[in-house]
């Protein structure tokens, strides 16, 4: 509708109201998601051990404590606190004794990497970057040698804290 000045007078109609309500709802959900997932998160320091099976013994000394360990996708897993290695074994059936026994694998080592990581807690699980930190779970650390698999064998968590901005 035009007024005396010839300009159009704007009225809210039902569509305007619905669009504004929808915009408010979308903004509310976006705000909730952003603040829940990015600015307010529960974190805790988690100490955990990764076991890497049957690597070439020559590579066992290439990982040093004090270094940062990253996943192959580039996210930080944690800081290495300790590294140890033992000769790899395999469970094999001994026909003489009629039992499964642990047989030593020559030139192969299992290494245990102990780490500390500042983990987020989501759905009652610990996450170091995008990696789930849970016993009996495979993880993909970026290492200077190839390996068959790396599995988390121990997890212990400290007290959690709530981070907010």
């Amino acid at each position, binding site marked *: 509708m035009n007024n005396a000045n010839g300009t159009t007078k704007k009225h809210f109609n039902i569509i305007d109201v619905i669009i504004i309500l929808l915009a408010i709802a979308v903004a509310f959900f976006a705000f909730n998601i952003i603040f829940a997932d990015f600015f307010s998160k529960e974190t805790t320091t988690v100490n955990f051990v990764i076991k890497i099976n049957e690597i070439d013994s020559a590579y066992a000394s290439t990982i040093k404590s004090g270094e940062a360990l990253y996943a192959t996708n580039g996210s930080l897993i944690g800081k290495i606190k300790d590294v140890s290695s033992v000769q790899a074994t395999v469970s094999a059936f001994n026909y003489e004794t009629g039992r*499964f026994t*642990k047989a030593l694998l020559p030139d192969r080592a299992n290494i245990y990497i102990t780490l500390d990581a500042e983990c987020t807690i989501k759905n009652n699980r*610990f996450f170091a970057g995008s990696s789930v930190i849970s*016993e009996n779970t495979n993880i993909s650390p970026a290492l200077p040698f190839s390996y068959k698999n790396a599995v988390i*064998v121990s*997890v212990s968590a400290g007290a959690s804290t709530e981070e907010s901005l």
Partner: protein
Amino acid sequence: MKSKKFNIVDVLIITVILLVVIAGIFRALSFDKLPDTVKNQNITYTLKTSTVDAIFKDSVKAGEQLFMGDDGSSCGKILKTSVSYNKKDVVMPDGTIVAHIDTSEIIYTITVETIADITKNGFYTADNNFIYLGNTLDFYTETFSFTADVVDFSPKND
């Protein structure tokens, strides 16, 4: 003064929004369940894990909360656990196959308690996940993850 009139576009948009809202409310209030469902029962159920490395023999403890899925659906509280060694088939020199204990691998039997809506062959958790006998699912506690079969469930005997 120009009177406000609904045009066909207004009517269509309002109709679509109303339908979406009604469908959402209807879906939330009427989750389909099997006809023989008995609601809100205290139950215990038993899980048998796939083989895991014997290094994890102390990783599941009574009293821990159990979860499943990516969204962390609650599955109840662990009542008790027991561990048995895995048995592997071995081809003997005479050609027979004999199962022998391999102490490097274990199998957990885990009893869990929860409140669920039960049916003849399964139950619905609080998050409406249907768990049935023979189901193979991925579960986790706060620090341990495992795959297990649902092998038994029954109303809890207090």
